[in-house]
């Protein structure tokens, strides 16, 4: 009896291990998406006035940088993409194409700034790439919360939340950039945690919301949390790649 039991357990465990990130995906984020801008409108749809950092929980150190913003200088220095880094790029009104680059890499192509983000499932590389606008994004299908943080059950009662439908992404190794197009800064010590959640509306529309948590010990006194919403489109016919712009 015992040998059969062990064979069953081993084969079951082997079957679980064989699933790729793509196969294990509890939600399907692939497709074409458009950002719907109903919040932070004038900070996203237009370039806000110099010095306007409303809603951002910035430290006094950031104010000097905010007031010194000079788009012409950024242009001259080839820093047009400073506002298109991972902490901010999802806030820029535009369209996305999401697809699987391979079984363990989810790719997001953004038409604004012609940016590409790669979400890597699995172990991080031994040598991390150099800091970049998009940094390195480590992804996983979010596990249920556990007091011990290791996903194992604690205590003798059954547990909630065994079926998460969220994508969790942690991004590091960022170049310093702007949280907004008008020069509200984040430093190269900033990290980003994102949660992608998919839902359907009764009318048939499919949406996802990304909750973005930017932590920056240099410029933010508390994590900066935004939620950005995208609606699925039938195709990518309106996907309109445009270069980065300082304005």
């Amino acid at each position, binding site marked *: 009896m*015992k040998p059969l*039991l062990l064979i069953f*357990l081993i084969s*079951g465990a082997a079957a679980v291990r064989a699933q790729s990130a793509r196969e294990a995906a*509890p939600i399907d984020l692939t497709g074409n998406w*458009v950002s*719907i*801008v*109903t*919040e*932070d*409108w*004038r900070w996203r*749809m*237009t370039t806000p*006035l*110099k*010095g*306007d*950092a*409303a*809603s*951002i*929980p*910035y*430290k*006094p150190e950031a*104010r000097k940088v905010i007031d010194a913003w000079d788009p012409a200088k950024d242009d001259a220095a080839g820093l047009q993409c400073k506002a298109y880094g991972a902490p901010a790029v999802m806030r820029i*009104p*535009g*369209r996305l194409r999401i697809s699987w680059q391979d079984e363990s890499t989810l790719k997001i192509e953004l038409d604004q700034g012609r940016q590409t983000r790669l979400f890597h499932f699995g172990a991080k590389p031994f040598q991390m790439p150099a800091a970049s606008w998009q940094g390195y994004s480590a992804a996983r299908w*979010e596990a249920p919360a556990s007091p011990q943080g290791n996903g194992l*059950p604690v205590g003798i009662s*059954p*547990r*909630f*939340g*065994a*079926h*998460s*439908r*969220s994508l969790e992404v942690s991004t590091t190794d960022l170049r310093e950039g702007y949280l907004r197009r008008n020069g509200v800064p984040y430093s190269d010590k900033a990290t980003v945690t994102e*949660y992608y*959640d998919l*839902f359907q*509306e*009764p009318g048939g*529309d499919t*949406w996802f*919301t990304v*909750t973005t*948590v930017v932590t920056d010990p240099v410029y933010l*006194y508390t994590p*900066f*949390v*935004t*939620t*950005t*919403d995208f609606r699925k489109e039938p195709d990518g016919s309106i996907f*309109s790649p445009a270069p980065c712009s300082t304005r």
Partner: protein
Amino acid sequence: MIRRGGFFASLAAIAMSLTPAHAQVDFSGAWAPLFHEDLPERIPGPELGDYMGIPLNDAARLRADSYDADRISVVSEYQCRPHGGDYSMRGLSNMRIDAVIDPVTQQLVAWHTRMGFQEMERTIWLDDRQHPGPLAPHTWQGFSTARWDGNMMNVYTTHLKENYMRRNGLPRSDRATFTEHWIRHGNYLTVVTVITDPVFLTEPLERSQSWVLDPGQRMGRDICEYNQEVPKPRPDYVPSHMPDTNPFLKEVAEWYGLASGVLRGGAETMYPEYRQKIGKPEQPKEKCDRYCNCGAADNPTCLVAPRSSR
């Protein structure tokens, strides 16, 4: 003994792998709203004439253009009016969420929310009950039922009283319904709200907002009593602007250096391609001088007056 222990360990392993995936998340606790988006609108308040990003129709536009903010003091019945169930999730005050547990089955049957502002209370039923019929009274918070989809709670609310989409006169009718999608990630709660209003919207209005768990918060009472504070010029006086006469509708464009056309809102203003249509501001401006440091360390709740009000 070792063999017996190994056998029981195997049983435990099987039990773990076969545990049904209960699709519930605990939302209970004290939550503080995060105002990292639209802080000036959500705390000091939206400015007159600002309909940017709202998919409103002409009827809503005229209603909002006619709105006179005196109405909420002169019409004393409005003084203590709370937010609707949809708007209350935009924050403005802290929230406490309690689980309502059936004492016999110990199953969760509802979530009960309470906001500090105007002591707004709401029940979200999870027991598959029916919504009331069309003749039942409407309430500010409406009637809400919900279902789980994995770790997301999807809520549907009907039976709302007439209220507003923004506190600058943008109306929301009593025929509106709204859905919500609640997700908790660690100590963050995200609530997505989608309002469908056949009277005032051409498309659903979707907004999302976040809360952070705040166990140290203390929610007291907020008891409102209304009173006639401003004498009315006549008994049947209701403040409003005649159509096309409201002088305040373009202030926002001047304050923020915007083209005045963007203020009029409409569904097209929600889409990225609208950026190509935004004209030049009638009164260009270079530097911010209003609400510039809202949310900063020295002005976290934006209660300090703008640097210049005009």
